[in-house]
């Protein structure tokens, strides 16, 4: 997939499918940015362990001609699942196919709604986050830019489920794009589930932006369980205003090559973020977490608790950086990264980083990579528990630190089972 190929696809799309002039301009900027940078490779420090240069030799489709058959079993099942939720949204191949949202919450496709788009500072909303070429690619070629607005003072206790599905068209690159605008004093709880319906080799390149206005609270759980030959790259980009908080939980079990970029900017005082993450990278999987937390204002706080497991020939990467800018006093930041290697061939690379330019801050970080403790295994075995189950018990104990942060018992149970099942394979 040469850059020329992608440029031509963009030209075609711009002529056919992008009716709004201002959107076209934004997308043009994005594609230029992408073409300047190309696919990320090892030469870029942030992509040191995950080289996407191989994409130059693959050919993906960005706008397939075929339409989805909703009677298909896998799709039917998923549809039923989404419909069964009190609040649910479904995106299929990057396009909104269903939404049942709480009252007053509306969703707009910026690419098509000119009145809506004209009232937004699109450059700021879209191009500003293009800090690596994959978000630019998404900005340029995502079929829909979906803008969800959580109005002022709206407090939604029940979670909203987002099912983001790749239909599994061979070599299709789906690019979901969602912007979540949390207005003043709003509270929202979101669960994003990335799934793929078929085994075909495909690519998901997703971008989720969260803009939080004063006093808003956002809880975000992302569970990625795509098929094992799926490439999954996604970016979460959160901008926090005064007295806001965001809790992000990332869980990755699926995918062949996975790269999650989570970036949080604490832009005003009393804003805080808590990031939790856990992955299991099994045979031939490569899972890379890249986290950036920027303390851009005084009295901001952040914490990270991340647990990675690699098994068989799985590779895990956790590269996390907290940056405290100049003259930012009273910032607190904690980073804790723990990893578990379950086989001789598995690999983990981990890099916790604190970059601090202010004096009056309280920051800590720590990282470990270890194996299961033989003494713990023996203790369990000496109680009659077989080695495999003992391993599974200990791995679950390791991962539970993250799972227990999830508010919903049924999801906690589901994920505990999922980890166990994958480990017993």
């Amino acid at each position, binding site marked *: 997939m040469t850059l020329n190929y992608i440029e031509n696809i963009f030209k075609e799309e711009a002529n056919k499918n992008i009716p709004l002039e201002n959107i076209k301009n934004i997308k043009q900027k994005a594609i230029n940015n992408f073409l300047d940078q190309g696919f990320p490779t090892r030469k870029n420090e942030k992509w040191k362990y995950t080289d996407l240069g191989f994409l130059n030799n693959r050919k993906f489709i960005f706008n397939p001609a075929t339409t989805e058959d909703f009677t298909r079993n896998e799709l039917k099942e998923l549809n039923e699942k989404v419909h069964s939720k009190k609040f649910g949204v479904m995106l299929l191949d990057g396009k909104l196919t269903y939404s049942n949202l709480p009252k007053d919450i509306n969703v707009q496709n910026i690419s098509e709604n000119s009145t809506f788009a004209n009232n937004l500072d699109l450059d700021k909303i879209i191009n500003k986050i293009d800090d690596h070429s994959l978000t630019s690619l998404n900005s340029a070629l995502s079929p829909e830019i979906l803008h969800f607005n959580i109005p002022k003072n709206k407090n939604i206790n029940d979670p909203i489920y987002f099912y983001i599905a790749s239909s599994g068209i061979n070599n299709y690159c789906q690019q979901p794009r969602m912007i979540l605008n949390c207005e003043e004093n709003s509270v929202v709880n979101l669960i994003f589930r990335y799934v793929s319906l078929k085994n075909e080799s495909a690519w998901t390149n997703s971008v989720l932006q969260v803009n939080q206005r004063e006093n808003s609270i956002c809880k975000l759980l992302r569970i990625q369980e795509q098929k094992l030959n799926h490439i999954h790259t996604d970016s979460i980009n959160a901008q926090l205003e005064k007295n806001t908080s965001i809790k992000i939980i990332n869980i990755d079990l699926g995918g062949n090559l996975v790269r999650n970029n989570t970036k949080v900017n604490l832009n005003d005082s009393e804003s805080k973020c808590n990031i939790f993450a856990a992955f299991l990278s099994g045979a031939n999987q490569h899972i890379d977490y890249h986290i950036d937390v920027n303390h851009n204002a005084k009295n901001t706080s952040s914490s990270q608790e991340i647990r990675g497991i690699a098994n068989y020939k799985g590779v895990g990467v956790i590269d996390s950086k907290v940056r405290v800018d100049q003259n930012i006093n009273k910032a607190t930041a904690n980073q804790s990264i723990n990893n578990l290697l379950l086989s001789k061939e598995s690999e983990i690379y981990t890099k916790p980083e604190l970059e601090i330019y202010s004096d009056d801050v309280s920051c800590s970080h720590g990282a470990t990579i270890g194996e299961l403790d*033989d*003494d*713990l295994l*023996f*203790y*369990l*075995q*000496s*109680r*009659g*528990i*077989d*080695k495999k*189950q*003992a391993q599974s*018990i*200990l791995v*679950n*104990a*390791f991962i*539970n*630190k993250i799972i227990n942060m999830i508010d919903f018992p049924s999801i906690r149970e589901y994920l505990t089972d999922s980890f166990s099942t994958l480990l017993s394979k």
Partner: protein
Amino acid sequence: MIEIKNLTVTVNNKKILDKLNLTVGNGEIHAIMGPNGSGKSTLGQVIAGKDGYEVASGSIKLEGKNLLSLTPEERSLAGIFLGFQYPIEIPGVNNAYLLKAALNAQRVSRNEKEIDAFDFMTLIKDKMKLMQIPETFLSRSVNEGFSGGEKKRNEILQMLILQPKLCILDETDSGLDVDALKVVSSGIKSISNNKRSIILITHYERLLKLVEPDFVHVLSDGKIVKSGNKDLAHELDAKGYDWVK
């Protein structure tokens, strides 16, 4: 019950047990005493099947069955229980879960149905009371943040639930105050019968006053150098080990 013959065990080519012989009959209580580093804990761990020990020669048979070819879990299911000298903390695994998993492993191996939550609670209630362990402890992580006494009482509770054929208690009495020692010994006595055998590894006579042994052995440099009845423990307490070495 258990027959250990000519057992020689090395770690990194260093001999820890040296042609050790020990036979424990059904229903018997044996105490193994001896100075630090004499090989007492190694003996317990080798019987339970811990990795890292090289059995250079000899055999261990439980009711005629060769234990050395079994994994630790198979030995447990065959009826061996080792009470750890230093019970291990397992953060993130709660006590109820461990107890249930252990119990169910046993039941499954006997082709019985797994126990349900209600029957489980009924089964452990009296035993917890006997060991003076409050119910809140069930939801706590195994041994995490437990006091020394709580850890040892927890070991005995596991033993009471698993009802092993051979209980090996490795310094279960060390670090216990008088009251905790009474609780632990009442736990041991409650399980003792004419079929079940017990090996108490200890430094002190005080436990043996509460749980009276049939035999007392002195282990020194990997060998049993002297055996006798409970009076030997009394003598050792008064005179130390030098005279028997």
